[in-house]
C-alpha cells in the first residue's frame, strides 16, 4: 500500500497541518516509506512464537472501582491558558 498525493493532502487537512501543494509529493513519499517499514514486519516468521504482551510475567493490576481522588478543580485548571466557569476554554475547532 502506498500513499498518493491526494491521500497526503487529505491527511494533512484532517491533522490541521498546512502543507504547501509543492511539498505534498515529498510528504506522500515519506508517509509511504513508513508503511513500507511496517510491511517489513510481515517478513518475520513468528509461527510457534507465543504472543508477548509484557517482559514481566504479571497480570495487569485492577483496582477497586471507587473514588480515590477528587475536589482538585483548582489544581487541574491551574495550568490552563484560559479557564472559564470551571472548564478549560479552547478555540473552536469543529466546524
Amino acid at each position, binding site marked *: 500500500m502506498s500513499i498518493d498525493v491526494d491521500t497526503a493532502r487529505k491527511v494533512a487537512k484532517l491533522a490541521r497541518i498546512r502543507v504547501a501543494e509543492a511539498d505534498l509529493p515529498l510528504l506522500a513519499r515519506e508517509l509511504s516509506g513508513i508503511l513500507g517499514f511496517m510491511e517489513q514486519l510481515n517478513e518475520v516468521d513468528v509461527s510457534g512464537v507465543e504472543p508477548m504482551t*509484557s517482559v*514481566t510475567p*504479571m497480570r495487569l*493490576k485492577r483496582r477497586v472501582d471507587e473514588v480515590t481522588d477528587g475536589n482538585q478543580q483548582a*489544581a487541574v485548571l491551574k495550568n490552563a491558558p484560559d479557564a472559564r466557569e470551571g472548564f478549560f476554554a479552547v478555540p473552536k475547532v469543529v466546524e
Partner: protein
Amino acid sequence: MSANSWTIAAARDALQKGEISAVDLTMACLTAMDAGDGLNAFVHKTPEIALDQARAADARLSTGEAPAMCGIPLGIKDLFCTRGVPSQAGSAILKGFRPEYESTVTAQLFGAGAVMLGKLNMDEFAMGSSNETSCYGNAVNPWRREGSNVQLTPGGSSGGSAAAVAADLCLAATGTDTGGSIRQPAAFTGIVGIKPTYGRVSRWGIVAFASSLDQAGPMTKTVRDAAIMLGAMAGHDPKDSTSADIPVPDFEAALTGDIRGKVIGIPKEYRMDGMPAEIERSGSRALP
C-alpha cells in the same frame, strides 16, 4: 577534592558521620552548577528548594536514622513532573507548565531526603540522541577531543543529565530510557547509567514517549552509586499499573564483585558496520 565531585557513597558516609553538612554539600554543588553554565545542562535552577531540602536533610541526619540518599544533591531530567517547578520535557509547547503534582520517582527520592538542584536539559519530548532538539539549545559534553576545543554532544536524550554528572555539577541525576536515552549519553560522557527492567520503576508523572518501553533510571559516577540510587527510585506504585509488585532487593549489597557462574549476553547488533576502531577496541576490552 571539592564535595561536588564526590560519589553518592562517599557523600552518604561523610554526611552520616557528620563530616560535612547537607547544606555545605549542596552549596558546593550550587557553586559548581553556576560555574558550569557553559554546558547548558541545568535549564531551570532551584537553589531555594535545594537549600530547604538540605536543611531538612541535616535535621534528619542529626537523628542518626537517615536513608542513604538523605542530603544527596541531584539534578532532575526535565521529563519528570516536579511540583511547582517548570517541567517542559525540553519543549516550548510546555513553556510555563508548573505541575501541581510530583512524579513518583522524584517523590520517592525527595522522601528519602535527596536534594533537587534543578531541572536538566534533554532532547524535546525525549526524542533524540544528541540533545540537539531541545528548546533550551544544545547541552554540551564536558569532554573534548585531544588537542581540540570543538564542543561535542553528550548524547541524548538525557544529555543534560549526563553532562551534569560528568562535570561534577551534581552527585547524580535522574534519566529516562526508551531506546537508549540513559545508556548512550552515559557512554558518551564516561559515567554510569542503567535502564532498569520494565516495571521496576514507576512511570507515573514522567512525560511519556513510548509507554511500553519507557523506564527511569539513575545516572551516576560509579556502579555502586547507581545501585544506591536505583534502590530509592524503584518499587511498586499503585498509580502505575505496569509497575512490578515485587520487593526491591538491596542492589548495593549485590555488588560483591563476584560474577562467577553468571551468563552475560551481549547482543551482536551492538557491533555495527563502520564502528570506529577505538570504540571497537574499548568495547571488546570490557569482555572476557
